């Protein structure tokens, strides 16, 4: 061992070496810090984007260069030398002129200085003079004189300046005149090469050159980097940062570089263009990127750019998950309450801003999901804000005893699908959590009790018609023709029923095993006789027709179901369940005493009452004694924001641990959470099984996911203006009465048209701009006094049992939808000019209008509406639009176009001027048309 110096514990040399080592280490670590800070994943992405952009520009440049006419360009360039020669011959003049220009410039500059000086004098003196005035100083006269003098000088200087400026323009023009030939040729060349030149410049910007390197060098890249975080600040959308609302910042475009630019559709992610630029993100779309951002729809942590996972990207499926794990080292993001929506669920976000509307254009899956929610009546048991106006999903049970028999009722309640495979009523019993015998016997007691209770409450009803038998073949034909299929699927017509997919009314299956024949004919004839508030309309069937249809429906039987005998009530089980109810707040003894006091019948009715409340029957069916009761299910208004930890996954390990995973699994089998869990009978999950298809569950999941607790400021949401509000109010009514089951309203629904896909003209009329087509007083009248407008149609416009308010709402809705708010003054339409009427009749004949619009003109079967009634029905402005181009309004209509491309087919009449011809024809129609409104019994053929 080396001897140490005195007073030293260590060898100084060694210490120095250690110090050197540590210093170098520390330096390296410092460099590492900067590198770690500098190297960010998004920079690599932006470099990649630059490369893609470069290729793109290069391609465009190549194309642009190809477009240039080389010969013309070289000839122009040749011309340039000639021009230069011409101009150089004027060299002397030009150089003289240039001297003059410089001279003038000098004078102008000198004058500008003088003028500025004088201006400041004037300003100073003005203040001085005003002060002198104010304080009445003795020198005010002197100051005033001085001010006057300077003002004059200033004005003179200004005038000289104007002179020099004018002179400069003059000289410049003169010089250009002398260089005219060169300048003109230059301009021509420039016009040809400007595109390539600009593209070249853009291309140069994508070069990785020293300047690029310098701008993006570590440490100095704060000055003016080209690779940088790009962001959108959304002032209309606030993030709740607890105690503070801050504008949302989306930095997604840092990596999704070309999301808003068309032309990058084929690039790999993240450089792809948004797939729906017309609707989203695009500059001219209703949701421009700068205003809507990204995360409002997609969700996720838009402000983060650390790496792929931190943003809370979420894979669509297992396959993509695997891919991402491999590619981006993806894992579930930590502590993110709402990660990005799976791509297929993005539409859920529409609901955030588009509220209070029946459907959202463009959000097809969401609309489908909401339609399914409506179909199954989820809103009955689960409150959802904005769904309060929906009608009860099931029929009223207030007079049920006269409609079906009790045995049927019990078997039906036990298992609706075993009677009708299309039943929308869900199944409560025989599920995974209540199929054990000890549960079954109690459930049977409950169903028996419910039946007794409902029958006890059921009011007497006597059908007003007797079923007299009918022709079931004709009945089937009628059922398929008159429009039943707009609301009902029908057994025996499965194919077309499936095509239409109607759900407003029940699928008519095994009806013969279900209802009383007299009840059925009475119902068909006049539905509101039995149930006042039914939406089922009258189709104005004759007694014969009603009997025929009834005969067909009665021929539909479910023999197997008829054979079912429902188990009688086990009284012991009944009493056990009742005890559980009664002892909820009382001791067993008190409850027992209470029970003992009740008679046998009372006990059954009490259990019936309790069970209707327990299973929430009253949510879908009108039952006496349950008015105003709250729904039994949890509210879904904010379900999409419910913390994941609050979803009980029970023992269902196979269910994906996400919000949508739970909701979908729940929809497909609501009772699964009870499996393997010990619960008393009364606490078993009650949500019934709807036997949804995977597609239905998926779309409903999406719709429920959209119910989030996120406050978008009013400025940010879509707010309906007063017209749109009126339209939406009407949409709710036409949705309630399922008008859209038959009529397509401006492209929306019209389910039954699927039946008429071979000839749309045989189906119910499509309503395109209906408020513009018809006069509002006619429309109002028509809704209450339906008469055939198109007698060749087999399908019938039903007579609805509308309240005054509902009728008004529908009429106003169409008016506002078409922006036609005024009544038509019919007295002013017909105002013949000389010779016009004759010309109109001539046109009428030439165009053979009466060959289709034959009613009242000849005895042919009409193929088009009776024009005698048009005076009261149609708006003249619409008639003109219609005549000019019927296909533009109703594609596929039989009405021919007589003025294709503004060319009249009758050039000799009225000078062949389409406007005048159309005007004349319109007047003619209103001229011969009748003022009297037709009624149901009016002869369609007559002239009136």
């Amino acid at each position, binding site marked *: 061992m080396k001897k140490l110096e005195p*007073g*030293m*514990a*260590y060898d*100084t040399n060694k*210490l120095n070496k*250690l*110090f050197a080592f*540590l*210093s170098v*280490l*520390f330096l390296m*670590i*410092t460099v*590492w*810090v900067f590198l*770690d800070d500098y190297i960010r994943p998004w920079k690599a992405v932006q470099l990649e984007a630059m490369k893609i952009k470069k290729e793109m520009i290069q391609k465009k440049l190549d194309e642009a260069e190809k477009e240039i006419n080389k010969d013309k360009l070289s000839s122009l360039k040749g011309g340039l030398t000639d021009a230069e020669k011409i101009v150089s011959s004027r060299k002397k003049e030009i150089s003289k002129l240039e001297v003059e220009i410089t001279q003038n410039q000098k004078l102008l500059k000198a004058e500008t200085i003088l003028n500025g000086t004088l201006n400041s004098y004037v300003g100073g003196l003005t203040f001085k003079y005003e002060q002198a005035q104010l304080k009445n100083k003795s020198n005010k006269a002197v100051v005033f004189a001085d001010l006057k003098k300077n003002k004059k000088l200033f004005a003179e200087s200004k005038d000289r300046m104007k002179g020099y400026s004018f002179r400069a323009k003059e000289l410049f023009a003169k010089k250009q005149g002398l260089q005219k030939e060169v300048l003109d040729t230059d301009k021509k060349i420039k016009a040809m090469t400007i595109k390539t030149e600009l593209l070249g410049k853009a291309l140069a910007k994508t070069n990785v050159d020293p300047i690029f390197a310098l701008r993006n060098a570590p440490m100095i890249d704060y000055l003016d980097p080209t690779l940088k975080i790009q962001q959108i600040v959304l002032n209309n959308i606030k993030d709740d*940062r*607890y105690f503070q609302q801050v504008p949302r910042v989306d930095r997604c475009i840092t990596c999704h570089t070309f999301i808003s630019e068309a032309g990058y559709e084929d690039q790999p992610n993240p450089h792809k263009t948004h797939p729906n630029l017309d609707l989203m993100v695009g500059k001219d779309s209703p949701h421009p990127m700068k205003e809507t951002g990204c995360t409002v729809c997609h969700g996720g942590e838009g402000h983060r750019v650390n790496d792929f996972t931190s943003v809370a990207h979420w894979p669509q499926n297992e396959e993509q998950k695997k891919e991402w794990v491999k590619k981006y080292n993806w894992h579930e993001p930590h*502590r993110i*309450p709402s990660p990005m929506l799976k791509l297929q669920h993005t539409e859920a976000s529409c609901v955030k801003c588009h509220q209070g509307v029946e459907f959202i254009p463009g959000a097809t899956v969401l609309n489908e999901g909401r339609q399914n929610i409506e179909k199954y009546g989820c809103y009955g048991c689960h409150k959802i804000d904005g769904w309060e106006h929906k009608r009860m999903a099931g029929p009223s049970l207030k007079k049920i005893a006269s409609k079906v028999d009790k045995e049927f009722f019990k078997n039906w309640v036990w298992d609706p699908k075993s009677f009708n495979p299309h039943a929308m009523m869900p199944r409560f019993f025989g599920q995974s959590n209540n199929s054990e015998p000890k549960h079954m016997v109690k459930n049977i007691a409950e169903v028996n009790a419910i039946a007794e209770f409902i029958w006890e409450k059921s009011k007497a009803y006597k059908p007003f018609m007797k079923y007299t038998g009918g022709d079931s073949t004709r009945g089937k034909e009628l059922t398929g023709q008159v429009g039943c299929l707009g609301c009902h699927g029908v057994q025996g017509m499965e194919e077309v029923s499936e095509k239409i997919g109607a759900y407003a009314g029940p699928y008519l299956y095994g009806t013969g095993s279900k209802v009383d024949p007299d009840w059925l004919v009475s119902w068909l004839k006049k539905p509101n006789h039995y149930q006042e508030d039914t939406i089922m309309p009258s189709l104005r069937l004759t007694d014969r027709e009603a009997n025929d249809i009834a005969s067909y429906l009665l021929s539909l039987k479910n023999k197997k179901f008829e054979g079912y005998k429902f188990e009688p009530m086990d009284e012991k089980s009944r009493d056990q369940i009742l005890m559980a109810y009664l002892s909820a707040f009382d001791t067993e003894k008190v409850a027992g005493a209470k029970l003992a006091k009740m008679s046998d019948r009372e006990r059954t009715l009490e259990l019936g009452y309790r069970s209707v409340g327990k299973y929430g029957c009253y949510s879908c069916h009108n039952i006496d004694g349950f008015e105003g009761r709250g729904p039994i299910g949890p509210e879904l208004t904010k379900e999409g924001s419910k*913390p994941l*930890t609050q979803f*009980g996954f029970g023992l269902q390990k196979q269910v994906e641990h996400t919000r949508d995973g739970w909701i979908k699994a729940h929809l497909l089998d609501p009772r699964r959470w009870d499996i393997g869990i010990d619960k008393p009978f009364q606490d078993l999950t009650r949500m019934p099984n709807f036997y949804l298809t995977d597609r239905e569950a998926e779309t409903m999941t999406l719709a429920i996911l959209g119910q989030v607790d996120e406050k978008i400021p009013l400025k940010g949401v879509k707010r309906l203006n007063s017209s749109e509000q009126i339209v939406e109010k009407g949409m709710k009514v036409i949705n309630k009465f399922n008008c859209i089951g038959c009529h397509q309203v401006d492209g929306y629904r019209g389910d039954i048209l699927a039946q008429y896909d071979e000839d749309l003209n045989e189906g119910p009329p499509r309503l395109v701009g209906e408020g513009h087509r018809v006069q509002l007083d006619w429309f109002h009248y028509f809704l209450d006094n339906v008469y055939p407008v198109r007698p060749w149609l087999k399908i019938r416009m039903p007579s609805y049992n509308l309240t005054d308010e509902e009728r008004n709402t529908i009429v106003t809705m169409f008016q506002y939808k078409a922006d036609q708010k005024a009544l038509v003054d019919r007295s002013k339409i017909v105002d013949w000019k000389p010779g016009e009427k004759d010309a109109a009749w001539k046109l009428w004949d030439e165009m053979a209008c009466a060959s289709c619009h034959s009613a009242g003109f000849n005895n042919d079967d009409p193929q088009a509406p009776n024009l005698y009634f048009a005076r009261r029905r149609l708006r003249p402005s619409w008639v003109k639009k219609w005549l000019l181009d019927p296909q533009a309004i109703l594609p596929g209509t039989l009405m021919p176009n007589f003025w294709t491309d503004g060319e009249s087919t009758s050039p000799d009449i009225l000078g062949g001027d389409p406007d005048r011809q159309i005007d004349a024809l319109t007047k003619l129609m209103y001229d011969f048309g009748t003022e009297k409104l037709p009624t149901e019994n009016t002869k369609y053929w007559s002239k009136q």
Partner: protein
Amino acid sequence: MRELINWIADPIRSFPIACVLFFLMMKYYRIIGTKKFLYASLVVVVPVTIWFAADPNFFTILILPDNIPIIILLVLVAFLTWLTIYKAAVNDARIEKGLGPLEGTPENREKVWSWPNLVYTELFMIIAATSFLIVWAILFKAPLEEPANPTWAPNPAKAPWYFLGLQEMLVYFDPWMAGVVLPGVVVVGLIAIPYIDTNPKGNGYFTIAERPVAMWGFLFGWLVLWIYLIIVGTFLRGPNWTFYGPFEYWDFHKVVADYNVNLSEFMWIKWFNTAMPANMFVREILGIIISLGYILVLPPLSGATKYGKMMIEKVGTIRYYIFIVLLLLMMSLPIKMVLRWLFSLKYIVALPELELNL
């Protein structure tokens, strides 16, 4: 085996085990304080640690960024404790032979310049420690999380690692006691040590034989009441601050049977079979008497014992009483823990009306 370890790890069992281990360690420190023991224990501990880490549930907890300093701490604490005991064992053996501590030998008493011997090396350590922290921060991405969300607290919500022992106390004490009074006493007590401990032995060297009270008392507080509770808080407390064995999955929905009863409820309802008195002081009279007795009567009683008299003679009356009160307060934690486990005792004195629960 894993089930068994999960079962043993519950504080009800692991705390007495920790106490016994501590006792054994202090009792047989001459054996533990040998290099042979160090190597032998390494041979045992390393494979066991690897086996522990092989469990996915334990591994998940182990690699949480917040837990890494705790692992470093545990390794350091284990090693430094051994080092202390080793040095003390060597010195005590020398002292027994009358040689005096190793640090007291003439060659170890030589003086050296503080510059560069001390200051320079301190600089090295500053650089090395800074480097270490930076590398650590880069490699483990020093977590900078979302702004705090009062409506969505993390579960389990854990204190910084150095406070986990305090947080564990919350299980047994009212927040006011566990969060304010006891930590305050800890701080005051630590500050007071140099003024209480007037024993000149052990200056500059380690010894257990020459200062048994200080070593036993301090190491018990430090290892069993502080480090052990940090271990429990880190590895064995999961969502809802429920106990989870080291190999147990942190199931959010785990429910443990736990219902605690106050001493006053024991007394009036169970023993006297009467209703609780309306007056709160009457109601809590037993707890008040016990608590006052614990803190006011025990010190003079202990001072009257042979051992107490000896101590008073050595350090003086005031020092002795301060020491004994601090010791009693420290011991209140294990006492309360044991009472909780044995009798489901909630509070000895339960005066929520005065925010005073002991």
